[in-house]
């Protein structure tokens, strides 16, 4: 394996807008909201930025294509801006570009900014009707909830989990995230909800009910990265460095070859294994302090915790019900409320996850601050269980 980028890149500053139905803001205002906080936190001048990566996934409903919208909005000093899109994993993709620029020595300061303005479509849920002209002729008339609901049916089949047990477990996933989101002033949904409400909610795509689905939100998040040496030279303490960045993309074996049973994320298993290797983590269940994973749907989080090699395959639902991933559990997961409650402005989500890790590692997470976290891991998934992009990032204290 390549040497990797462990400890070659430090996060100098981060920012995140308030997520939610931001009727008051367009993508531009959201970008600036996250950027202002980020730049201030980094403590550098805008003219010091040497490259930028800009992530949005459904740009056709807000800013449009290219790197120009970011450069125009922030009035960047004519530096390279790369627009990246990797579905819901776009945010981590922007971060990866910026980190690689710094790790390679091509840039001392690089910006990653993700944004999504979804609430100008006139209807709830993600905008639909995309895909190429061939897909339009044969792909099932599906939605994200419908695709992920099938993860639940396949998981139950593969592991002999009853519908009732699974519904309770995924209900607990959402319950926990609502508990956490209630402590986050930037979250889209800040209300704790009762289990009964979750279990009895209207069905969106069986077996996923309303509370099994994350919010569709507007928002932006940003990071400025540099090297740990430069960060130190700038007088920074409590430096957070990147330990690993890995991505795995489906090549069609899940969706086209009968070897996959539909009950897990093939890519997440690969990306996380590589990430642990890059970060030098031998026993993730003992070494990772906290997770922000891609809980687009409750069942996604449950299965992901197995694919990240934390819960045993087929036993994740028991860990969930045991409170293992609760705020006061062994490894808190979605301490900021996750996609479920913080919200899911697609292009920003990967960076939002890192934002929480960064705050937690610096002890700045306020009422939801965990005790002495050292390693945080994010998992940002784009696509559907059968065809997806799994990106994972591991960040931690620079020691």
């Amino acid at each position, binding site marked *: 394996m390549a040497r990797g980028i462990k400890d070659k890149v430090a996060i100098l500053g981060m920012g995140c807008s308030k997520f939610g139905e931001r009727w008051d803001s367009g993508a531009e205002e959201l970008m600036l909201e996250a950027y202002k906080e980020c730049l201030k936190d980094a403590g550098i001048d805008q003219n010091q930025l040497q490259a930028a990566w800009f992530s949005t996934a459904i740009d056709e409903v807000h800013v449009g294509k290219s790197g120009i919208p970011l450069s125009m909005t922030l009035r960047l000093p004519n530096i390279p801006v790369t627009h990246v899109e990797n579905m819901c994993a776009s945010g981590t993709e922007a971060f990866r570009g910026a980190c690689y620029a710094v790790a390679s020595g091509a840039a001392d300061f690089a910006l990653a900014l993700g944004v999504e303005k979804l609430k100008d479509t006139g209807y709830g849920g993600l905008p639909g009707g995309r895909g190429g002209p061939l897909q*339009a002729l044969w792909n099932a008339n599906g939605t994200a909830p419908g695709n992920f609901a*099938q993860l639940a049916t396949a998981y139950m089949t593969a592991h002999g989990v009853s519908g009732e047990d699974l519904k309770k477990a995924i209900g607990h996933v959402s319950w926990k995230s609502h508990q956490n989101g209630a402590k986050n002033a930037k979250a889209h949904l800040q209300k704790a909800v009762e289990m009964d409400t979750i279990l009895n909610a209207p069905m969106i*795509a069986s077996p996923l009910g309303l509370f099994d689905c994350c919010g569709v939100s507007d928002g932006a998040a940003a990071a400025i990265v540099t090297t740990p040496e430069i960060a130190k030279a700038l007088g920074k303490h409590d430096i957070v460095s990147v330990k690993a960045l890995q991505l795995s993309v489906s090549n069609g074996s899940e*969706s086209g070859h009968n070897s996959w049973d539909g009950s897990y994320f093939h890519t997440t298993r690969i990306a996380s294994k590589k990430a642990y290797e890059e970060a030098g983590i031998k026993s993730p269940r003992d070494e990772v302090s906290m997770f922000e994973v891609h809980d687009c749907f409750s069942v996604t989080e449950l299965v992901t915790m197995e694919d990240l090699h934390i819960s045993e395959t087929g036993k994740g639902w028991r860990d969930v019900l045991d409170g293992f991933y609760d705020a006061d559990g062994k490894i808190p997961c979605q301490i900021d409320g996750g996609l479920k409650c913080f919200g899911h402005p697609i292009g920003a989500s990967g960076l939002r996850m890192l934002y929480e890790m960064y705050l937690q590692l610096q002890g700045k997470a306020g009422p939801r601050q965990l005790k002495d976290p050292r390693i945080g891991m994010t998992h940002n998934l784009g696509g559907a269980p059968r065809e997806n992009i799994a990106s994972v990032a591991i960040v931690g204290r620079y020691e």
Partner: protein
Amino acid sequence: MVGIVAYGAYVPRLRLNRQAVYDANKWFAPGLRGLAKGERSMANWDEDSITMAVEASRDCLTSHKAEDVRNIYFASTTHPFKDRQNAGVIGTALNVEQNLSAMDVGGSLKAGTSALIAGLNASKDGAPSLVAAADKRMARVASANELNYGDGAAALLCGTENVIARLVGHHSVSMDFVDHFRGEDAEFDYGWEERWIRDEGYSKIVPPAIKAALAACKLKGSDITHFIMPSLMPAVPKLMAKLAGIGEGAVRDLMGASLGDTGAAHALVMLVDALEGAKAGDRIMVVAFGQGVDTLVFEVTAEKDKLPKRKGLSGWMARRKEEKNYMKFLAFNDMLPIDKGMRAEFDKKTALSVLWRKRDMIYGLVGGKCKVCGTVQFPRTQVCVNPNCHAIDSQDPYAMAGLECSVMSFTADSLTYSPDPPAYYGMITFPEGGRFMADFTDSDKDQVKVGARMRMTFRIRDNDQMRGGFKRYFWKATPV
């Protein structure tokens, strides 16, 4: 000896309860009470005359190779396209293109029999001809036609080998007797008074035509074992038989109580019904009335009993789900300005160039089989999907429409737009190899389960109403 060598049929699963229709409309049309009996077949929202004809053709070809077919005739008064050969869509769906002559036959309720005569004549030299007929006629709300019509299809393979029903003879007359019509811009039929149609039309035009046909066949009326004659007036076939000296017992049931009148297809639907139960030596007369009369006479041969089993009309009739929701019937047929929501607004424009390039995949459900590792896959791509193979340019076309498959995972989606929510879809896997995320149709909650056995069926996927109704067809999975 030319004749029919195989038959098939198709009837939509849904059967609209006529009492439910009458109950909704009796405030306005109390006179329909006499028709409020039994049920009529009702196409699902994703069915039209093409999809029904494809199903009937597949049923017919259970025992024969589609690639042997040299002519396809597709009769209907409701061809989905005015200009785009509808029969050609059927051919592509059956994976027949080369050496194929295709023709749409329409314009009259005797289109089905006219197509059959053409098919039989075209097969005299041994070239097998497939004659498919289907209709899905619209009728005004609270009309008698709404209750009388049914949706359905039949298909007959004509040829000279292993003939199950030999053509004894046929006879036609054509005259512009307009009992009803549907103009170019009309959605619905417009008809004249029934008594006039009976007395001046049927009674004066049909008996001489039957007599001429019998004379041409050197038969007497009493030689006919099965007399088939569709009519919206149930007494008319009996009257015609009587006038021609055909025994009352020979007059076939119109299937009005359970199916309804399937328009241009109905004579052939009734012929399939008769063939299913016919014995060697039986003589079947088929009469269709519509601006003239077509008459065909067949004699059933001993080959009939050797014909491999198929679903047939009785099989499709037995696959039945009662529908008492008249509103659903109206909505499925675009007779109700229902609030479909913004998700129904997505553009359905079809890239015709893509459709042409991928027509075997989209219309034929042809996947690939890797020559190197043997893996069957859908769609066929340049690089084999098997993670242990990935051979390049290694796949032969592999037709999958006829294969059974099973449900690996599924959902019932209430978010996506579907004319019949929730939308059922899921990952289907073929035991030979190959899988894809497929829409399900004709599926109920209790039928769709992990591991459930499914078959593929050719259906409407989308209707591009922004561009005058270009229908996208593809294959869906339906419980076996």
